[in-house]
């Protein structure tokens, strides 16, 4: 056997991996999902930040819950320690050698700055810089305008970046006031900023359509059809990143639950249903339902065990099963039920809405095309000249799809 044939045999599995990697990440995809996610995420983001209007000073002002001095110390001075690279134990804190070290140790509960691998962390927030209440309100209102423009998809390439920069400003300034909702919002905004989220269902698209029509009219050419958004590699990369990130979130959430005894004895769901501060315990009918369950032990145990099994199966099963075409819709449906339950019982409505928005990344292309087709049929009924119908026929809105639900492209 020659060397070249040996190399080709050894190379074969790697070639398959590279091919698969290339197909998974770099096949152009329709950006419509991203457009829909932008609208959905944008609306929630707008609401979340609008709600801040009454709490601007409370959370971001000079004398906020975490005051400016504290957050500046935290982000610039906080010590980070690295574990030993060998088997030696973590060394003890050495005594302070000068007044500067003494001051630092008093401030950080005995941590000697010489022991710090690094101090602080890189963070951006406009609220570190703008602290005058009137200017804060001006900046805050400008951010609300940015979120609105991002939602409608106006200058999306710019407004998506500004929207993330705005949202991260609030997060970095008040890190102790954030919860899961902010984490999901941040993830969505990052990916929507990277991907072409304004390429579909946006004002940008309407503007470029208007330019197209105007140019055609000016040149006395026939008006081109309103084509579907062009498939893009960047759209696919971002959709894939969202899908993988979503799976990591679910897997981490599901597997970490297995450390807890109450997830094994099947009673954990009670701990999410009966928390006075989160659950609607003040609503009489909800409390009556809980009392009814508690008065029938068998029923209570059944309900709790079923809830735990459902949660664990959805969170641990989804990351692997959702990639199977037959299991995709059942898993999406289960995730929808899970988050609807979280919204209703635990009161985390905006968090659930953002998780459901992330789930849109898994909606297959056939479904998006079907929806678009139905939408264009509906538009036909409204538009007097039947323009949409004509376009549907001319540009093949319902064109056949590839095996993976994506447009076929020649390679």
């Amino acid at each position, binding site marked *: 056997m020659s060397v070249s044939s040996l190399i080709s045999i050894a190379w074969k599995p790697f070639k398959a991996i590279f091919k698969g990697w290339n197909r998974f990440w770099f096949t152009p995809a329709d950006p419509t999902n991203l457009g829909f996610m932008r609208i959905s995420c944008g609306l929630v983001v707008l609401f979340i930040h609008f*709600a801040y209007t009454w709490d601007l000073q409370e959370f971001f002002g000079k004398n906020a819950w975490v005051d400016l001095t504290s957050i500046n110390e935290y982000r610039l001075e906080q010590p980070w320690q690295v*574990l030993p690279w060998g088997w030696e134990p973590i060394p003890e804190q050495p005594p302070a050698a000068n007044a500067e070290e003494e001051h630092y140790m008093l401030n950080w509960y*005995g941590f000697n700055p010489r022991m710090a*691998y690094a101090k602080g962390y890189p963070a951006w927030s406009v609220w570190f810089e703008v602290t005058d209440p009137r200017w804060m309100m001006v900046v805050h209102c400008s951010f609300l305008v940015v979120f609105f423009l991002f939602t409608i998809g106006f200058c999306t390439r710019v407004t998506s970046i500004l929207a993330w920069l705005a949202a991260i400003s609030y997060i970095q300034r008040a890190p102790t006031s954030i919860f899961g909702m902010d984490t999901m919002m941040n993830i969505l905004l990052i990916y929507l900023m990277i991907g072409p989220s304004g390429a579909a269902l946006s004002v940008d698209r309407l503007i470029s359509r208007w330019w*197209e029509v105007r140019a055609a009219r000016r040149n006395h050419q026939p008006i*081109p059809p309103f084509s579907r958004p062009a498939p893009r590699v960047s759209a696919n990369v971002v959709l894939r990143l969202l899908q993988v990130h979503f799976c990591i979130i679910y897997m981490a959430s599901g597997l970490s639950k297995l450390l*807890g005894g*109450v997830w094994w004895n099947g009673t954990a769901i009670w701990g999410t249903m009966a928390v006075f501060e989160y659950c609607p315990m003040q609503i009489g009918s909800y409390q009556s339902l809980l009392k009814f369950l*508690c008065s029938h032990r068998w029923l209570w145990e059944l309900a709790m065990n079923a809830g735990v099994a459902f949660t664990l199966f959805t969170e641990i099963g989804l990351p692997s099963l959702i990639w199977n075409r037959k299991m995709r819709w059942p898993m999406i449906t289960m995730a929808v039920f899970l988050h609807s339950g979280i919204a209703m019982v635990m009161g985390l409505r905006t968090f659930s809405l953002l998780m459901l928005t992330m789930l849109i990344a898994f909606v297959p292309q056939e479904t998006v095309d079907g929806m678009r087709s139905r939408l264009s049929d509906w538009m036909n009924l409204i538009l007097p000249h039947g323009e949409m119908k004509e376009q549907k026929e001319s540009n093949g809105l319902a064109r056949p799809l590839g095996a993976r639900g994506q447009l076929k492209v020649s390679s």
Partner: protein
Amino acid sequence: MIDDNRDAGVETTQPTGIWPTFVNHLSARTGLSQCWLQFIMLLLGSLTAYLASEGLHRVSWDSAALLFRVGMVLSAIGAVILLLPSVGRRIVVSLVILFHLGGILTAVTSVNPSPWLSTQLWTTVYRPYLYFLWLNNAYHFYSPQPGPANLMFFCIEYKSDPDGTKNFRWVLVPDLDGEGRPVNPDGSPVFSGTEYTRRLSLAEYTGSSGIVPWNLYQLLDQRLRAAQVDGILPFDPRKVPYDKQYREPDARSKRWIQAYVRHVAATYKHQGKGKENLPVKSVKFYRVLHQILEPDQLNAGVDPDNRSLLYWPFFYGKFDKDGNFTEDCVKIWIDSAGRFQSELRDPYLYWLIPYDDLARHGQGGDLEKADSNALRVEENDADKEVKP
């Protein structure tokens, strides 16, 4: 940047969006290819970001300067990637994807119990990246088990009246009104559930897990001795073991608590007429765990908001208005050998205070000689109680 589909053979389409249309027009007018135009623009962008970063540094807007430095680097890298052939771009993007997902995995796995490799990678490689993007969440929701909600109770003591009357105000965050609607300490409604959850989140950060101290029995001894004098007894250890009644927060939580105390001392005035400007003497802080009602308790008719039974306030210290521990609570100093020393002087520090004794503990004894907003519960004439 990776949408150049020339190699993939995708049919070319009209650009969508304002920016691509603008580049298209500019390219037609200048005769330069779109690729070179974007390259020039990115380089110009990088230069502008550098100048902005330098300018912002001079006015001490360090975080804005950092942002522009990041923008400068990204623009420069983007410009170089633009000039690469399609395969080169895909290789670069693939490496970025691997780095990014590697970071997410270290964030997920660097929470205890965590692998050594993950912790080292997180600390030495990914920490700045994940912090800047705020992607360092481990997503361990409700694990290992769903826990009770955390609440914050502040007992602010103001300067006493000339006749010896002590002035107090209790601030409860978050708080609900009689109908279960979230309210601010002044009684005004909280705008939305999201803002209410943010307040719960503030409280959550006061309780990052501490460890049981090596000298727990010594601390218990002090606690029990103090109880004999004040009558504020701990819970029956057969029901709640002593080690569960002591929770010292970690250093990071202590710093958050100090910040919260500063905010409360600066924000909340005494509510008495003519007492709005009384200076703050001290603030006592309690982290209150609202225990989840057990199913058998609900079945037995226990109210889910039964404070005496379900509220577990842990005393986390007495502070001055600047958020420093008062000398009679904790003394912190650097000794002559340069070592950090701390002495817990208050025997109740970090111990659970039964809710029924909370007002007495917060206001320090004689409740009748105090002007406070603590709720006076008079179930019968013989048994008067004062509760926050």
